[in-house]
């Protein structure tokens, strides 16, 4: 049993499909973040899901999907400013990484072609 089940949680959807659970989080959260399957939350729960896996923030509460093989997908909410802060940090890192990639692309495209023939080759 994961530590998640021992925390104080609220259930918003039970025994549903993963797609419906994702839709619920997207429609009922103030902020939505997307993580990869395997993203770790709390002490030992690794998120199970079909990418993109949505995680929501609503006030102090984090909304996430919880999947059990015999029972389907649940949408759970747990108050956790720490996990919310980690989610935001994770998103900030992703944006920084993608901006770095874009800067590298720009730097490459800024190089002026040395000759007309090189320009036409592009």
């Amino acid at each position, binding site marked *: 049993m994961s530590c998640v089940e021992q925390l104080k949680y609220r259930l918003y959807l039970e025994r549903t499909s993963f797609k419906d659970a994702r839709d619920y989080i997207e429609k009922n959260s103030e902020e939505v973040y997307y993580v990869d399957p395997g993203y770790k939350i709390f002490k030992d729960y690794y998120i199970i899901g079909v990418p993109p896996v949505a995680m929501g923030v609503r006030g102090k509460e984090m909304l996430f999907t919880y999947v*059990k*093989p015999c029972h*389907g997908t649940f949408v759970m909410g747990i108050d956790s400013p720490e996990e919310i802060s980690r989610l935001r940090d994770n998103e900030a890192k992703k944006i920084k990484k993608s901006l770095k990639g874009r800067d590298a692309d720009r730097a490459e495209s800024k190089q002026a072609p040395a000759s007309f023939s090189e320009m036409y080759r592009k």
Partner: protein
Amino acid sequence: MSEGKRALLVMGCPEVPVQMSMVIYLSHRLTKCSYDVTVAGTDAAVKLLKAADPESYYVKKTVDLDELIANIVEKKIDFDLCFAFMHSDAGMTYGATFSAISKARLFAVVFGKNAEALGASIDYPAEKIVAKATHNPNPLKNKIDKVVL
């Protein structure tokens, strides 16, 4: 040559009878091809497997599904082949997770009453083995036999 190669069989919810039969069969077949086979599942699925194979003749290694996912994410273990058994949306979701976290060649083994629709909903990288089988294992077995290992 598959010596030294590792294969993982991921069991979904054990409520559809063909799954246990096919897991034991596939484990035996992969072992004969020199794969080191591990079977993962929930507590209930592993108990059913151990009751059917008390001396671990067909399945040598079993592991708890959540523990295995943690170990793959933490890069403590990975596999060359992974067969994810599924007959429900939850099983399909677990398959997507293995597709994302593991480098293994992934086979989605889809069975049960809604096999075709479930198989069509899989849009992550996986080779699909789909058969509408619940009690009779042969339609699924025939398709598994066609897989080139």
